């Protein structure tokens, strides 16, 4: 299979507002893609379109299916966690496991139980008695036991404390992900996912402003700690972002930009390094919060 998700001219309008504005993208199998953008940029809408949760215009194929007309087939191979608080409050842990086992042909009960055993969840516990972190643990236990080809995570760790967040991604990477699977994650907490991502997509005002693999990004963007005497020379090379840390200027350069700066050129200005996804995000999104 070539692509897990393939979009061409994907558009979604809510009344007069255009949430997703004719975007094109391809997500190949075996990748972990971070879909990152500010609130209201259209990332959740894009995912909802891919999951057949909202109607849309344009072309969109997920695992070879059209989510509008073939959702029932699609859901055999796709799973998603939409938000932390969506497990119904009356659901018991053991009932949840029984139910998902009953309706999902690719559910591995033993796997779910093994994961639950490693947490504080009790079989008779109801969702309403759980903390937010425990609800996510239960949801993750259910989802990780499903052998899906595509897993979509929309803000999966929103509102969780740092321990749960770290554990969540660690479990996902260690116990779930393999080259047969594809994961798409949206999150605000870029720092926590950047180490597990293989690909990055920045979305802004319903358009994709950057789509690249992490290697490509590492090659293309360079951050330089510019020494005091070389600031004006550095500014002449058109950095896409500049900030000051402890009195030192830190500038971000795009080697594929109009100025076409090379790594050697920049090394002469000061110490170079790869920028963090968060810094890159802030630089790319400049203006959209203003």
């Amino acid at each position, binding site marked *: 299979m070539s692509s897990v998700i393939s979009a061409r001219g994907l558009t979604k309008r809510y009344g007069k507002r255009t949430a997703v504005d004719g975007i094109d993208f391809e997500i190949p199998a075996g990748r972990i893609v971070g879909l990152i953008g500010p609130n209201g940029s259209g990332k959740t809408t894009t995912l909802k379109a891919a999951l057949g949760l909202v109607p849309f215009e344009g072309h969109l194929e997920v695992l070879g299916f059209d989510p509008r007309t073939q959702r029932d087939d699609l859901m055999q191979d796709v799973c998603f966690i939409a938000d932390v608080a*969506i497990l119904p409050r009356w659901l018991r842990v053991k009932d949840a496991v029984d139910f998902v086992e009953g309706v999902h042909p690719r559910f591995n009960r033993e796997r779910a139980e093994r994961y639950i055993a490693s947490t504080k969840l009790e079989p008779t516990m109801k969702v309403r008695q759980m903390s937010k972190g425990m609800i996510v643990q239960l949801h993750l236990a259910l989802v990780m036991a499903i052998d899906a080809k595509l897993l979509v995570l929309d803000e999966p760790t929103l509102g969780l404390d740092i321990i749960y967040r770290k554990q969540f991604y660690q479990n996902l990477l260690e116990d779930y992900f393999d080259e047969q699977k594809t994961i798409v994650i949206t999150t605000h907490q870029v720092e926590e996912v950047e180490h597990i991502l293989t690909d990055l997509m920045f979305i802004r005002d319903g358009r994709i402003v950057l789509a690249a693999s992490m290697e490509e990004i590492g090659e293309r963007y360079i951050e330089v700690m510019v020494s005091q005497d070389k600031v004006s020379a550095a500014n002449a090379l058109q950095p896409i972002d500049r900030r000051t840390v402890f009195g030192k200027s830190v500038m971000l350069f795009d080697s594929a930009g109009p100025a076409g700066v090379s790594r050697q050129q920049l090394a002469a200005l000061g110490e170079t390094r790869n920028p963090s996804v968060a810094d890159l995000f802030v630089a790319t999104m400049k203006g959209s919060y203003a």
Partner: protein
Amino acid sequence: MNTKTMKWLLQREFWEYKGSMFWAPVIVAVLLVVLMGGGLLYGLAQHFPSQLTIDGYTVQTGGKTIRVALDVQKRIALIASGTYLGAAVPLFGLLAVVVFSYCLGTLHDEQRDRSILFWKSLPVSDSMTVLSKAATAMIVAPLITIVLGTVSSLILLFILCLVTSLNGIDMFGAVLGSPDLYLSPLRLLALLPVYVVWALPTVGWLMLVSSWARSKPILWAVGVPLVGLLIAKWVSLAMGEFAGEPLNIWHYATDTVARLLTGVVPGIWYTFTGNGPAALRPGDNGFDPGSLVTSSYATLGTADAWIGVAIGAAMLYAAMRLRRYRDEG
């Protein structure tokens, strides 16, 4: 249709609505047995009424049992075994309330708590989900009521027999020997398909509103038909003034609203078709419970019944389509 998935969907509805589907009727059944049974025991065993009359036969006066002819005893037993399920009438009233609120809540609740997104992350289609909810309303809930009603009525009948035998009328043999004792619960089961037919328009309407309304489904479900009634009244009045002769739409409007809102009441089909049950008028041999089944099935011979089925099914289909793209809370 995947029967295993359907079984789990029905199980899920039962988990979610266990309180109203199961515990509420259990509590009412227990109350019925305790209050009515206790009343019987207390009233008859402790304070003999000055006169006890059963079916026109005075069997007891001034605390002394009159010798009752055997055939009369037998007749009393027959009546008791034919009508004992009448004790469960409050349970069937409760059923109407439970089914009404369930249908109005079920598709709305999952949107409100956003759990719809969890259910939709599993390979379960919208049509299966909506069908499972309709089946819960029209089959599972009535079955629970039939079982509880039968059990509690049997206990009450046993208490009645016990009390009368303490007073010199032994009915146990006659009651146990009466075929009606065993046939009555089966008759209730036989009425289930009739219930489904007449409940479908109401179930369809309520579930459609439940799926569609962003908030306060009860206001929409009841308000829209009432506003419709007002408009119908106004139009028929105005037309009456204008044409000099009142229009017939008022009649149709009230009929439609009744079918949309009260179809889940067991036995309501008699009022819809206008032929009150002959069975409810005691004949020569007392009440004939068997005629309840035949007269109920007779209502299915009307076009009204099947027009309602078609409209109810269409509304359920619309609820399914609405749920397809209802994800935002």
